[in-house]
C-alpha cells in the first residue's frame, strides 16, 4: 500500500475534527443566547408590579430599535433622523395589516420588518447619491413625510386622534394580551436581534461597514463598494426599526403621531452614543439605563430634560467613547477585587 494512501484517512480525520471544532463553537454561541433567554424569562416573577413589566417590555422593544440604529450609525457611521419614522412605518403597517387585512401577527411582524428595510434602503439609495453631509436632510424628508401621512390620512391612520384598538400580538392562537405574556414573546425576539447584530459585527459585511466609517479612502482601496454597504446598513437597520415599531404597536396598542416624534429619533441616536458607537452590548445596556432613568425622573415634570442633559454631559466627561469603553477599564479592577477576597 503506498504511503500516501495510508496517510489519507488520518488527514481526513484531522480535517473532520477541525470542522467539528467550529461546529462546537457555533453551538456554544447558540447555547449562550438560549441561556440569556431563559435567564430573562425567569426574571419575570421578580417584577413587583405590572408597571415594572411594562418598563422591561419598553426596554426590550427600544433595545431592538437601538440595535438597528447601531447598525446604521455605529457600524456604517450614517447620521439619520428618520429612525422614528421608520419605526412608525413598521408600527402602522403591522397594526393595519392585522386590523384591515386580518393577517396573523407573525406575518404582520415580518411585513413590518420588510417594509422598514425597503423604505430605509430607498432613503439610503437617495442619500448616498449626494454628499454625505446632505444625507441627514434626506432622512429629515422621510421623517417629515411620514408625520404628514399619519396626520392627514385619517381614514387609514386615525389622523391626529390616533389609531385605537390595535390588536394584541398572538402566536398560533396564544394571545399576548397582558404585559407578562408580551414579555415572554419579546425576550426571544430581542435575544435573536442581539445575536444577529453580533454575528453581523464579526462578519465580512459588518467589518466592511465599520471600515468605511473609520476610514473611507482605505476602505475604498480595499475594494469595498462604500455606497452599497451604506445602503445595506440602512436596509438592515430599517428591518430592526420596523420590527421594533411593530412590537411597540402591539404592546401599547395605541398609535398616534406623537408616538414616533423627532425626539425619539434623537433619543435612539443618543442611546447608541452613550452605549459606545458600534457596540451592541453597550447599546442594550444604555437603553436599559436611559429608559429606566427617564421613567424615574418623569415625576419632576418637564425638568427631566434638564437631568437628561446633565446625564449626557457626565457621560461624555467620564466615558466619551460610551459605556462599552468602560468595561475593559473596570474588568481588571473587578478581577483584582475578586482575587483579593479569595
Amino acid at each position: 500500500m503506498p504511503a500516501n494512501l495510508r496517510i489519507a484517512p488520518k488527514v481526513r480525520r484531522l480535517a473532520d475534527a477541525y470542522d467539528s471544532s467550529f461546529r462546537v463553537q457555533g453551538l456554544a454561541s447558540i447555547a449562550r443566547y438560549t441561556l440569556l433567554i431563559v435567564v430573562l424569562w425567569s426574571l419575570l416573577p421578580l417584577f413587583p408590579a405590572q408597571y415594572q413589566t411594562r418598563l422591561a417590555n419598553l426596554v426590550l422593544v427600544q433595545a431592538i430599535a437601538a440595535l438597528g440604529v447601531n447598525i446604521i450609525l455605529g457600524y456604517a457611521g450614517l447620521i439619520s433622523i428618520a429612525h422614528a419614522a421608520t419605526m412608525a412605518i413598521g408600527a402602522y403597517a403591522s397594526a393595519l395589516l392585522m386590523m384591515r387585512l386580518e393577517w396573523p401577527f407573525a406575518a404582520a411582524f415580518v411585513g413590518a420588518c420588510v417594509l422598514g428595510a425597503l423604505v430605509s434602503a430607498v432613503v439610503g439609495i437617495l442619500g448616498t447619491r449626494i454628499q454625505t453631509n446632505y444625507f441627514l436632510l434626506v432622512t429629515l424628508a422621510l421623517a417629515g413625510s411620514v408625520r404628514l401621512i399619519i396626520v392627514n390620512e385619517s381614514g387609514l391612520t386615525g389622523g391626529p386622534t390616533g389609531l385605537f384598538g390595535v390588536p394584541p400580538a398572538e402566536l398560533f392562537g396564544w394571545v399576548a394580551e397582558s404585559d407578562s405574556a408580551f414579555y415572554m414573546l419579546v425576550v426571544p425576539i430581542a435575544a435573536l436581534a442581539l445575536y444577529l447584530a453580533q454575528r453581523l459585527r464579526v462578519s465580512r459585511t459588518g467589518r466592511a461597514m465599520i471600515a468605511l466609517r473609520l476610514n473611507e479612502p482605505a476602505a475604498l482601496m480595499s475594494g469595498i463598494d462604500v455606497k452599497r454597504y451604506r445602503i445595506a446598513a440602512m436596509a438592515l437597520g430599517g428591518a430592526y426599526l420596523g420590527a421594533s415599531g411593530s412590537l411597540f404597536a402591539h404592546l401599547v396598542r395605541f398609535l398616534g403621531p406623537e408616538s414616533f416624534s423627532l425626539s425619539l429619533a434623537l433619543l435612539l441616536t443618543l442611546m447608541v452614543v452613550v452605549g459606545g458607537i458600534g457596540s451592541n452590548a453597550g447599546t442594550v445596556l444604555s437603553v436599559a439605563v436611559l429608559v429606566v432613568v427617564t421613567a424615574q425622573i418623569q415625576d419632576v415634570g418637564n425638568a427631566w430634560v434638564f437631568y437628561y442633559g446633565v446625564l449626557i454631559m457626565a457621560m461624555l466627561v467620564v466615558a466619551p467613547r460610551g459605556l462599552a469603553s468602560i468595561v475593559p477599564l473596570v474588568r481588571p479592577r473587578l478581577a483584582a477585587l475578586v482575587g483579593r477576597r479569595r
Partner: protein
Amino acid sequence: MTEHLLELRNVSVRFGGLQALDDVSLTVPRGEIRAVIGPNGSGKTTLLNAISGFVRLARGEILLDGRAIHRLPSHRRVQAGLARTFQSASVFGELDLIDNVRVGLHRTDPHSLIDAFIPGRNERLSAETRRTAMDHLRAVGLDTHAASLADSLAYGQQRLLDFARAAATKPALILLDEPTAGLNSTEIERLRGDIRRLRDLNTTVVLIEHHMPFVMDLCDTVTVLNFGRVIASGRPAEVRADPAVVASYLGTRGAKP
C-alpha cells in the same frame, strides 16, 4: 497580457487655476519597481490619486493591464488589481490588527452575509481569513501585536499595517505613497525586503519616496516630476546624473550658494 501593466496617456489634472498634472505620459512594465520623485508640490501624490480614482482627470487615459480604468470608481479599480497605501498612517483605528488586514482581504473573502448567521460556518471561514491575515502581519513584523487596536500602534507601525492591508488585496499593481516616512531603520530594512517579495509574487510597484538611498537601491526605474510634468525617467544612476534633475530636486553636494 500587455507588456506594460500601467500606462498613462496624456494625463492632466487641474485644481482650479493650478495645473497639478500637465500632460503626463508614462508606462510601467510588468514586474518593475518604479520610483516617482520630485520636489514638494510637483504632483506626485496627485499622480497616485489620479491612478486610484481620488481625483478626476481633466484629460487623458489610464490603462491597467490594457484596460481603461480612469472612469471606474476606486473600489472597481481595486477589483481590477490595484492597491495603494496613503501618505499619512491610514488604518482602521478601532479595529484590531487582524481585522485591519481582513478588510484588505475583502475582495477574496468568500464569506457571504448568510454564512455569517450560520453557526459553525462563520467560525470556520473566520479562522481561515484570520490565518491569512496573520501571515500578512508576520511579513511586516506586526504579528506580535495582532490583537491590539490599530490606534495603539506607533506611527511607523501604523504605516506598516497600511502596507500589510494593501498587500493583502493581492494586487497586480501597488502604489506606495512615501512608504519609509516615519519608519526607523530596522523597519525600513524590513519594508525593503517586503517590497522585493511582493515584486517576486508578480506585483508591480510604483512608489513615491524622498529617501534617496532607498530609491537608488530598490528601484529599477526612476521618474522625476516637476510642476506636474515628467522631466526625466530612467535608471537610478542616469537620473542622478541628469542636470535638470540635479537643478530642480537633488541638488549638488558642496555646490555654490
